[in-house]
């Protein structure tokens, strides 16, 4: 895509990526549920140096009344980057990019939420990116899904999200900032994960975006890779929820 692409050593002799990962490795990921006290649900997800805090208020009364839907809840979504979350300071408040991401993130989560259980109500979801190194929207969606679960909002399945990309004609999972900016492509994907008795029973893709220059085969490879990543993230989400409820119960298991 860029001329600099060819100059970068994307893989070392052992096939490791610029940050030492294998092609199908996620970055080091940490998740914590219930990190804020004012919101009804909250979570922080850290993927490498990308860190997002998400919150949920609601279901609650929605104002003004004309925004209400008689048969379902209405979601308001905010995605915002803190001024210090990027190298060159960003002006405070959501810009056009942030508004678009808020929109696609809402569409990524909404199909998983049992909206019809809360007619006329509003659910406010918000994500604050406090540090960014690629993958802020997918990390935000993963965090927001945890915040929804923490708020006790019923969902058909947990949503998890990550991006796959292509560098040096090779599909890689969970692109970092450098791979995103200077690689061939970036495809963020979100999944609703369905599980029954610990068995993975299927999934639905609720977010796809892409920019770059790829063959259809490469795109399909990226989607498969990202789906695998989403499933790994989903396991970590379950662990993070268990961790919280273990603490609440005060027991070990």
């Amino acid at each position: 895509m860029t001329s600099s692409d060819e100059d970068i050593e994307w893989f070392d002799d052992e096939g490791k990526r610029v940050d030492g990962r294998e092609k199908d490795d996620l970055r080091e990921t940490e998740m914590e549920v219930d990190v804020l006290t004012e919101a009804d649900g909250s979570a922080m997800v850290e993927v490498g140096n990308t860190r997002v805090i998400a919150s949920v208020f609601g279901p609650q009364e929605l104002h003004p009344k004309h925004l209400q839907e008689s048969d379902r809840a209405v979601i308001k979504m905010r995605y915002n980057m803190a001024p210090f979350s990027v190298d060159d300071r960003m002006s405070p408040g959501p810009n056009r990019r942030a508004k678009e991401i808020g929109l696609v993130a809402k569409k990524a989560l909404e199909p998983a939420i049992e909206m019809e259980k809360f007619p006329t109500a509003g659910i406010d979801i918000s994500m604050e990116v406090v540090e960014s190194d690629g993958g802020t929207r997918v990390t935000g969606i993963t965090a927001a899904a945890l915040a929804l679960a923490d708020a006790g909002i019923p969902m058909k399945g947990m949503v998890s999200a990550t991006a796959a990309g292509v560098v040096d004609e090779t599909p890689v999972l969970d692109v970092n900032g450098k791979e995103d900016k200077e690689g061939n492509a970036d495809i963020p994907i979100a999944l609703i994960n369905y599980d029954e008795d610990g068995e993975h029973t299927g999934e639905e893709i609720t977010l796809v975006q892409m920019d770059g220059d790829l063959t259809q085969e490469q795109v399909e490879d990226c989607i498969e890779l990202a789906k695998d990543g989403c499933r790994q993230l989903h396991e970590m989400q379950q662990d993070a929820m268990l961790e919280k409820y273990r603490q609440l119960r005060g027991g070990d298991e």
Partner: protein
Amino acid sequence: MKLNQDTIREMAEDGQRLDGRDLKEMRDIKVETDYINETSEGSALVEIGDTKVLVGLSIEIEEPYDDRPGKGTIVTNAELAPMARRDYESGPPQEDGVELARVVDRGIREAEAIDLEDLCMVEGEKVYTVFIDAHVLNDDGNLIDATSLAAMAALKSGYLPAYDEETETLNRDEKWKDIELQCEPITVTGHKIGDTLLWDTTGEEEKALDARLTVSKKKDGNIVAMQKGETQPFTADEMSQIMTEADEKIQKFREILEAEVGE
């Protein structure tokens, strides 16, 4: 929540609080510097009780103002994230955020904590601007104190990146030097409910608040900035009491700062 407000007022009359603290007692304070790994030139997460404020510095190169060609600039900004409190609206800084930023800024600026001449690279052409951005993540009261403390902690642990004269840009991977602080002003706020003065109010208590007085003091004890807030008046005696009682809180803040980012 009118009930709670009435209860808080009645209890305050008897010198009591909902959470059982003494009137002058602070909640637990935690300071974590270098919270942001890569993208910020100095950062701190401060928690006072459940209140959580993240401050990150951004250093940029800009042209100096015409009337002070040899001096850099500091800019303080505060954002109250909608997640911080149920009644916060998303959008550009509201009045509360603007006041918060200005009060925090005044303490630092009036104490001349940062030597602005130290931020000058090429007189009349290139100076450093230090952006102090506060992100309020969870508001359970006493925001001014938490934000000021986070700002000082971020500055104390912050640095100026190297300036590359050839490309006329900052080399963010290379540190030039620490941000030098000439003095360390500390900002604390006394609160009034009815005729009772109290410290480190919670969000719940602040709904019943009549007045507050913020005081910024240097190490020598001199006051460099004040701000009265909320709708009811103070007597001169009440203000004196707050200025006096402030010393103990300021001392505590200094000890916490020293422990986290000592010399």
